């Protein structure tokens, strides 16, 4: 084995990031750019009776004022239900209503303040269950007319249901009748924010010949190109999307949002370059957030604790527009049981409109949310039956021969080793049965466990690609469409390439920024699929490169191609290794000592397309959405004060079946980072709305994130069950640290306080309410 795998190398872009040289979208020079600013709705649900822009247009320096009347196109990746600027109706507080383009920011801001909007309030619907009531007015009156971009989104006109996914397996009703214990629980999880440290920003310009240049902080530059091309009837080849470093995405930068507005802004001023920036407050209230969820989970088990039946209803609060939420409902349906054998199952996962800020993908694509519900219900079941909650999970863990909710047969290669994850986390956390330990006085310590699995929901035809070229020193340049937003994709791909070419990873240079006219398409940098999809493309590019080197090498050495080996910077015949040529002497075509030229420059290219995935059957959910599953188990330990209703998170443990560890330090850091996000989310984060549906103070002063000094000790360990279809056998892992943390924390606190904590966030006032005290 080469030195590239199982090596904790530093990030490729490390020195750029510590020197302030790493450029993010809004760091690029903008002296020639006009400035665009947005005016957003102050009402959660209102008819827009009129917008007076005269005062704004008259101000000096103002170049254009746009409203919904200036663009009648509808946008949306799955269901086209959203205008770029609200037309006729504003459906959430924070919805962009008008946009000003001016010579500089002070002029744009002053003009935005001079726009007068007349609203007529409509009753807001602020929870999915409220929006599901029979008398609830549909938030989208023209739901039937919206274009469905994909065939498996089926909105239900006349209601607020934007999509519905069903899973039916066995006979849940009959199975419940046989159960010794049945648990039913209701859950309410509020929306929250991605809170990437970099606020979203985008720029656009349109050249005289019609070429469009967009610079943005997107996780999905190729989707930006595609959506702009389709919506505005521009040939896709005329559009270039550039993405420099991205300051955190977590799914929040996957949808196409600011790019559309920046394009419209540039178009309104004759194609001049326009820079659209938004304050943090708009980033939170106006642009998509993490979904809320309401759920009912019913589980039944026999007297031995074996799960017999499950019945579940999930109402995804997608907010005012669908964006990618129908797919998150699908993701819930596909994995709804968690990594357990449940043969009798009925699950409905609905995507429901409300007058909240619309939602989009968030780290783990809904798995953190439904896992919370299932894992809380499992603890309740363990309590009822008198079982150790960890042992109950181990008994029911998915094993070879079982099936996923959508009927995919579980195998170690496909679904990993859930049981070993549970056994290893038991050891790592010093699990002691799950009973709270009194520390004297009002203090107790308690642990909670949660298992999880995650699969992906890419389009069945998602693609990736890679190009590799040589430098004169024999080092290589790697070019992909993968965005570097912190998830370490570039470094992982460099290691995969170095391993295959038998080079030192330091000899792999990665093109840091994405330019859609230069780099081959990579579907999106989402779903933890970079290592899998782009990794497979990189392997193919390496194979292509090696084949070319062998061809040139064989010709130069006068032997068969099959005898040629490429390793350690050399090209040689395995029969006569002492007769070698330096890789750098062959890479650009070989020149013999006599001056004759042999072969040609080696240029590696690799394309990859997902295979074997299918749509889910609308009636039963049967089908397969993901190349593989990654399972894991987590334990959180708390120290609680039973009188004060306060607590500290002491330790958080995670064991993940990552298939194969490529970079131990980076993998550990990525998983612990996800766990940290889970601790922050579960302990404090939520969007809070007033009775009119306006978010209260969407800013970092009141929306607190975990800061240093509040964090637990993190323990991370791995199980390695290789996925034979993945580069080096590595399973997706980048999002996963977050998934079970909210559930494990709620289980620990429920054990500590002797109550049922079935909501988030787990603030002291919520605990006080749950134990029956005054809030």
């Amino acid at each position: 084995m080469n030195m590239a795998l199982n090596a904790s190398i530093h990030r490729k872009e490390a020195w750029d990031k510590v020197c302030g040289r790493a450029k993010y979208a809004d760091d690029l020079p903008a002296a020639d750019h006009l400035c665009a600013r947005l005016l957003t709705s102050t009402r959660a649900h209102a008819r827009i009776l009129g917008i007076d822009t005269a005062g704004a247009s008259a101000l000096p320096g103002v170049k254009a004022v746009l409203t919904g009347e200036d663009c009648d196109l509808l946008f949306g990746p799955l269901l086209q239900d959203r205008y770029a600027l609200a037309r006729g109706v504003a459906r959430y507080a924070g919805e962009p209503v008008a946009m000003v383009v001016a010579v500089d920011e002070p002029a744009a801001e002053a003009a935005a303040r001079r726009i007068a909007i007349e609203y007529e309030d409509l009753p807001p619907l602020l929870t999915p269950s409220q929006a599901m009531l029979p008398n609830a007015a549909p938030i989208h009156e023209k739901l039937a007319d919206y274009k469905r971009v994909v065939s498996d989104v089926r909105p239900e006109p006349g209601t607020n249901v934007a999509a519905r996914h069903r899973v039916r397996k066995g006979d849940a009703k009959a199975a419940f009748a046989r159960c010794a214990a049945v648990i039913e629980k209701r859950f309410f999880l509020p929306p929250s924010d991605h809170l990437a440290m970099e606020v979203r920003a985008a720029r656009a310009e349109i050249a005289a010949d019609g070429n469009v240049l967009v610079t943005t902080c997107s996780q999905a530059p190729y989707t930006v190109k595609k959506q702009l091309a389709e919506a505005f009837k521009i040939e896709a080849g005329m559009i270039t999307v550039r993405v420099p470093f991205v300051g955190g995405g977590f799914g929040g930068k996957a949808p196409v949002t600011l790019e559309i507005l920046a394009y419209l802004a540039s178009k309104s001023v004759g194609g001049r370059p326009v820079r659209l920036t938004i304050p943090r407050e708009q980033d939170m209230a106006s642009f998509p957030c993490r979904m809320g969820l309401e759920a009912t989970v019913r589980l039944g088990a026999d007297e031995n604790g074996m799960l017999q039946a499950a019945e579940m209803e999930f109402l995804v609060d997608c907010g005012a527009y669908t964006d990618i939420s129908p797919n998150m409902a699908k993701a819930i349906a596909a994995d709804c049981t968690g990594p357990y054998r449940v043969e009798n199952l009925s699950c409905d996962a609905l995507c429901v409109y409300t007058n909240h800020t619309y939602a989009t993908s968030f780290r783990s694509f809904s798995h953190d949310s439904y896992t919370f519900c299932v894992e809380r219900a499992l603890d309740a079941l363990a309590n009822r039956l008198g079982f150790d909650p960890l042992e109950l999970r181990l008994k029911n863990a998915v094993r070879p021969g079982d099936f996923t909710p959508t009927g995919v047969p579980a195998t170690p290669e496909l679904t990993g080793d859930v049981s070993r994850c549970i056994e290893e986390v038991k050891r790592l956390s010093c699990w002691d049965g799950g009973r709270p330990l009194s520390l004297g006085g009002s203090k107790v310590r308690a642990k909670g466990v949660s298992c999880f699995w995650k699969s992906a929901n890419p389009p069945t035809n998602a693609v990736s690609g890679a190009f590799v070229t040589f430098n004169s020193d024999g080092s290589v340049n790697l070019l992909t469409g993968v965005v570097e937003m912190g998830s370490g994709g570039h470094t992982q791909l460099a290691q995969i390439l170095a391993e295959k070419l038998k080079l030192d990873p330091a000899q792999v240079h990665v093109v840091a920024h994405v330019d859609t006219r230069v780099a081959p398409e990579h579907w999106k940098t989402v779903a933890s699929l970079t290592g899998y999809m782009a990794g497979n493309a990189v392997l193919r590019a390496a194979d292509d490169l090696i084949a070319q080197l062998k061809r040139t090498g064989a010709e130069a050495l006068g032997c068969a191609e099959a005898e040629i080996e490429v390793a350690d910077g050399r090209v040689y015949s395995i029969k006569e290794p002492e007769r070698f040529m330096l890789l750098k002497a062959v890479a650009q075509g070989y020149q013999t000592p006599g001056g004759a030229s042999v072969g040609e420059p080696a240029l590696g290219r690799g394309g990859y397309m997902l295979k074997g995935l299918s749509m889910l059957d609308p009636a039963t959910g049967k089908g397969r959405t993901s190349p593989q599953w990654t399972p894991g188990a987590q334990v959180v330990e708390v120290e609680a004060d039973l009188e004060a209703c306060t607590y500290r998170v002491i330790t958080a443990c995670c064991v993940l079946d990552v298939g194969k560890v490529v970079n131990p330090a980076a993998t550990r850091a990525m998983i612990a980072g996800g766990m940290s996000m889970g601790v922050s989310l579960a302990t404090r984060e939520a969007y809070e709305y007033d009775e009119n549906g306006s978010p209260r103070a969407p800013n970092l002063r009141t929306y607190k994130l975990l800061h240093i000094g509040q964090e637990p000790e993190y323990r991370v360990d791995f199980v390695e069950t290789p996925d034979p279809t993945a580069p080096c056998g590595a399973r997706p892992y980048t999002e996963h640290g977050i998934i079970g943390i909210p559930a494990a924390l709620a289980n620990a606190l429920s054990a500590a306080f002797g109550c049922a904590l079935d909501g988030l966030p787990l603030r002291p006032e919520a605990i006080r309410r749950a134990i029956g005290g005054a809030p």
Partner: protein
Amino acid sequence: MVRYEGKTVLRLRVNGEEREVLARPSDVLMDVLRDQLGLTGAKPGCRNGDCGACTIVVDGWPNKSCLMLAVEAEGHDIVTVEGLGGMSAEQRAFVEADAFQCGYCTSGFLMVCHAMLTQHPQMPEELVIEEWLQSNLCRCTCYAEIREAVLRMYGTGKSS
């Protein structure tokens, strides 16, 4: 007392160099550093003093450049991440400890560490370190790597 009206030429001492910028009395230092001097290491994460991504060092102390007016900076010694040189103890420690992922908060954390090293040449106790670093937020890491970087900066980390 100096009185500023309209756009004024300010003389700022930034990273050891005398620089001239043109600023209104209401312009915040962060925007002037970024837009006029190209020092984009200071990041506008919130423009409200909550995230710390814009932290710079003024006369040896950390300062949120989004909360400081450019006119207030005259006569003071300003250091930004670009002024750390590239091989400083802070920068090396952050690279060796892998103390960042997306990198957006990194300049701010580095500048807090730079000031801490100035004010506490010997490593202070853990609670003091936590107090110093609580002014800044990181959304990617679990903070363990940043703690490790601080230890390395003081020469007490794992293998340093």
